[in-house]
């Protein structure tokens, strides 16, 4: 129905990242890259977020947190794993407490590799995520319409 791709709101969660990728994520919002020109807002609230940006691998302590944040986000939603740790677990993969990448607990749609991922790569990943977000939104609208028809 509507064009939602113009207003993607991000939720940024730091799994067990070394903060390298987090600083690059924040760099996307600075005057040099200014992600807000695409309507991207960094919100701290899962209830209002559309794109879940996760950095760092998932460990035994935060796996429930990651799952819960994902569940709290309303449909349609897209998950982006930023940095090699969030993609696969990276150099920490073999650690006793690391389960692996973000996809070990939640479905990940877009992988942005790099250590740390460059802002250009992150913005590229987000732009891909936005296209996917629009696609999912259209599917969601079609589903809601079908449900309404079925209900009556």
């Amino acid at each position, binding site marked *: 129905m509507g064009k939602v791709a113009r207003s993607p709101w991000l939720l940024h969660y730091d799994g067990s990242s070394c903060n390298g990728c987090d600083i690059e994520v924040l760099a996307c919002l600075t005057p040099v890259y200014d992600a807000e020109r695409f309507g991207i807002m960094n919100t701290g609230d899962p209830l209002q977020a559309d794109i879940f940006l996760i950095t760092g691998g998932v460990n035994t302590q935060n796996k429930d947190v990651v799952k819960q944040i994902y569940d709290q986000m*309303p449909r349609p939603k897209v998950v982006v794993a930023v940095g090699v740790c969030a993609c696969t677990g990276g150099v920490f993969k073999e650690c006793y407490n690391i389960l692996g990448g973000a996809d070990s607990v939640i479905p990940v749609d877009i992988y942005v590799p790099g250590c740390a991922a460059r802002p250009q790569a992150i913005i590229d990943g987000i732009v891909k995520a936005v296209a996917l977000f629009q696609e999912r939104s259209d599917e969601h609208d079609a589903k809601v319409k079908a449900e309404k028809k079925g209900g009556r």
Partner: protein
Amino acid sequence: MSIYMRVIFIICYVVLAPFLGGFLEGLDRKISARMQGRVGPPVLQPFYDVQKLLNKQVIAVSRAQTFLLMTYMLLMIFTGAMFFAGSDILMCFFILATAATFLYFAAMITSSPYSTIGAQRELIQMMAYEPAVLLTCVGFYLSAKTFNVSDIAASPLSHILYMPGFFFAFVFIMTIKMRKSPFDTATSHHMHQELVKGLTTEMGARNLAFFQIAEWYENIFLLGVVALFIINNNPWSILAAVLVILAVYFVEILIDNTSARFRWDQMLKITWLVTLLSAGVNLLILMLIS
């Protein structure tokens, strides 16, 4: 003012206010971005945001929240409609306070710690700005000998000449009402702060869209009150009022971008001090000369 004029004004307000409010917010975000050396989102961004919010899946902690927010929005529309129809200004502000109470309940009902703190701070904000608002109404009465907006607007001289102190106090508390930076204690509009999103933390999808649209109605109503200070029976004063509104809006954006947030007790002290000094002294002078 004839009954037809009143109806036309009400219809104009109900239909145009959200568009005007959204457009002003878009300008706000663009100008803020330029002040920070960024390109900024398109001017129509607030409309894109609301359109998206209306399309999202509705997850509500409490079903009553939608009802409370709808009531908030309807009362806000009612306030503005009464104002632009030229009726009692004191009544407008009482209904505005009622609307704010519904917003408080909508945030409280979720029992989330963030929105509860936001709601309590909203109450403190109300306590901070209400004296200035009521004094402004009294000031209009002393200056125009009536509470009726249509009669106030039809006076031969602009009221700002009699009540510059009230004007200053009102613009000062508008920073609170518009949720701008030194006083954005109830809803921090930046991510990753101690409040998350404060009052609006538990509002998602269409509930947040209702809240947003109600804010636009409120902003247009408040800017209408600013215009009331300027407008007199000369039609050219409308142009002056529009210029003053734009200037006030720009000053609010400038304050927003150049100041850090106050604690609630600092906010209360400084707001009441400004109200007392500027509106209070103006009130005494008005009472003496009349």
